[in-house]
């Protein structure tokens, strides 16, 4: 009941949550590509989200075309992914540490890009990738955001799906599975890892760019917690929709991301928790989901033991 009431009286909050869910789903797909496809947790995403936002904010504030600014954000994300991949493959630095190194340095780089610790982009005055739709159709900004983010998500899903289906993408997926086998098939696993990190972080950079344009500012604390939010959406998707086809998995991540944002919006608006608890709650959720298979196994074992004792 309370939920229904919430829905009917808070359509703006829901609209905002869905928009955020769509925007962050691009990031979650990026996390999915490293965490699930390559099976390598990559912390670079924390840096590339920030870099994407910073790059876009700086360029837009200097009257660069917002689409060009968005493209630049993708490229800077790719560059961050390349840096981590290069450190990991060429110098054998453990992937987590390589990601942390890039993440830490991207803080400084973001400030260099922006020239300051944050850039406000007053959403009503500055152009963004949403404004062309507003001008064209005289549409309300909130709707323009929804439509543009939805279109971007759709394009991203299609491109990622097609890419993973190519010869190169297939080799990339195999690299996450079994590097020894992949090398025996004549594939350079280092190139695959670097390409995967570039793709993933390019997407996260794109998410950062759209996020900055949506919320109307970029600041240096934007990236923190990215990987956990990304994983949360991913895990919600995997628990609610245990699908195995690649394209259904992509769609489930988008839905998972929206659900995650809706739940957060609800929890925050009914004063269930202060917004500062968000990270703790999300991290707990992710930790719980990650140990779930182990707990399940333990419980099954316990029941088997009990059953044996009962039988004897």
């Amino acid at each position, binding site marked *: 009941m309370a939920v229904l009431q919430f829905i009917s009286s808070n359509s703006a909050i829901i609209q905002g949550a869905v928009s955020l869910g769509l925007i962050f789903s691009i990031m979650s797909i990026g996390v999915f590509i490293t965490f699930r496809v390559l099976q390598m947790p990559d912390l670079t995403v924390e840096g590339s989200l920030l870099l994407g936002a910073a790059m876009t904010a700086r360029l837009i504030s200097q009257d660069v075309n917002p689409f060009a600014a968005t493209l630049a954000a993708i490229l800077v994300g790719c560059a961050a992914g390349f840096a981590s991949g290069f450190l990991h493959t060429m110098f054998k630095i453990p992937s987590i540490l390589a990601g942390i190194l890039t993440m830490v340095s991207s803080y400084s780089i973001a400030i260099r890009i922006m020239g300051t610790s944050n850039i406000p982009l007053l959403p009503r005055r500055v152009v963004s990738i949403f404004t062309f739709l507003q001008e064209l159709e005289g549409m309300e900004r909130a709707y323009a955001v929804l439509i543009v983010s939805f279109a971007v998500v759709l394009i991203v899903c299609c491109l990622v799906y097609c*890419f993973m*289906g*190519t*010869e*190169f*993408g*297939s*080799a990339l*997926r*195999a690299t*996450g*599975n*079994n590097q*020894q*086998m*992949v*090398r*025996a*098939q*004549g*594939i*350079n*696993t280092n190139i695959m890892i670097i390409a995967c990190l570039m793709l993933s972080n390019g997407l996260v950079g794109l998410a950062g760019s759209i996020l900055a344009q949506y919320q109307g500012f970029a600041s240096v604390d934007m990236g923190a917690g990215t990987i956990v939010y990304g994983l949360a959406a991913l895990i919600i998707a995997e628990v609610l929709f245990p699908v195995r086809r690649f394209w259904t998995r992509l769609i489930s991540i988008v839905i998972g991301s929206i659900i995650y944002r809706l739940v957060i919006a609800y929890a925050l608006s009914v004063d269930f928790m202060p917004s500062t608890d968000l990270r703790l709650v999300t991290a707990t959720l992710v930790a719980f989901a990650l140990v779930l298979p182990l707990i399940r196994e333990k419980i099954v074992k316990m029941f088997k033991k009990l059953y044996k004792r009962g039988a004897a």
Partner: protein
Amino acid sequence: MLKVEDVHITFEAGTPIEKHALQGVSLSLEQGDYVTIIGGNGAGKSTFLNTTAGTLFPTMGKITVDGVDVTYMPEYKRARYFGRVFQNPRAGTATDMFIEENLALAYRRGKRRSMFRWHISSKERSFFRERLATLGLGLENRLTDKVGLLSGGQRQALSLLMATLIEPRVLLLDEHTAALDPKTAIIVLELTNKLVQEHNLTTLMVTHNMRDALTHGNRIMMMHKGRIILDVKGEEKANLTVADLMKMFETASGEEMLSDRMLLT
């Protein structure tokens, strides 16, 4: 063909646990040679195979394939010359991917992977179905099953097919039946023979099992402490018995053969 000249490899050089795992291995294969390599634990069989395939690099020596020096060529580059099947059935396949995807990966061994071509074509699919049918395991109807669903024997059969899908210059088999139950091991070995004969493949097969080593192939080698101490081929090899082998081992190495595993199998 494959030529190995005086290859040495030392692990952990300069430390108390230094191990001189290959101590001057030389070998020259002729087209169509089917060599079985036996030896006890730690004799250097797997190390030798891995050095040939490029998983390990020698500290000294030279390896050439058809006159091309591959001694320090990275593993993925020299994969175009070698088809490999590993001991661990998990090692040769991508378990989360479909059977057809694994075959498609193997079908492009040594070729550039395009970002603009689909990973499998319908023509290839029917070709894979045909090839799978020759295994006689019913896999031809399971093209879109994940390899993780297959048994160890089925995976090794698939790995063999993948290794020979593009004819390799040399087929490297690293105890590829050791992790299987005896019955499955026989099936996989028979399949190995069939594929080797069908394509007249040059093959190096490492095994723990003396009887397998004697009954398969046209040439047998025995390794001991990082050296090849025995190399018999043709007629002479065909007439060898397990007892002969043990005697030859004792005279060649000056030691008694103690490995239970080798005696019992």
